[in-house]
């Protein structure tokens, strides 16, 4: 089974019934993919309960952010010091660090550009769009 790390945009794509978001869900339904999302992503995504959000929360394995990934993210954020909008990309870096250390080295995102930029620090991680 393929392990997939989701960013906020991927969860939103599922919620809004976008085709590729639904394909991720179908892959999970057929036991061909395990969908993971770290809790900081949930904080970006969750804006109160709805029927769809409750179901997505069940469909996706929600993972507290592990220490090893936090250390990797911290090192990269240090290297990115001075880059514009560093605070804005913290969660993106956490997603990439998690994918590199635990999350199957595969990320689905609605923001391929930003995550691909961060991927230079995590060369083993593939970034695909929803």
């Amino acid at each position: 089974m393929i392990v997939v790390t989701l960013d906020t945009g991927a969860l939103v794509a599922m919620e809004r019934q976008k085709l590729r978001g639904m394909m991720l869900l179908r892959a999970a339904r057929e036991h061909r993919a395990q969908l993971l999302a770290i809790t900081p992503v949930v904080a970006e995504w969750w804006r109160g309960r709805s029927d769809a959000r409750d179901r997505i929360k069940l469909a996706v394995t929600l993972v507290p952010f592990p220490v090893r990934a936090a250390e990797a993210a911290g090192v990269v954020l240090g290297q990115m010091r001075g880059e514009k909008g560093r605070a804005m990309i913290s969660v993106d870096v956490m997603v990439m660090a998690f994918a590199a250390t635990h999350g199957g080295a595969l990320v689905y995102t609605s923001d391929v550009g930003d995550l691909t930029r961060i991927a230079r620090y995590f060369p083993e991680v593939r970034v695909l769009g929803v």
Partner: protein
Amino acid sequence: MTQFCWHGNKIGMARLKRSGKMETFSVSVSPETRARLRKAADRAYGGNVSALIEAIAQEADRQEALDWLIHRVPPIDDDAFEAFMREMTGPKRKRARRAA
């Protein structure tokens, strides 16, 4: 660990730790199934069959949620879906080689 758990650490186990009121009930399964349950529990839950059953219930919830989400939209074309899966299983990225 089973497919019901995240393999990256023991979160699956932690989540399944007993809390609150528990109920005991009997189930009837074949000897082979009982052996399989025991084996799976030994492998992933320290021999705790109850924890394994909790995980099975959790997976049932997940499947129900996935059904609900998927059935809100028109069926996905099988060819398009298989193309999507090929993309997902595409070649892994390699680390950049260092210059000599």
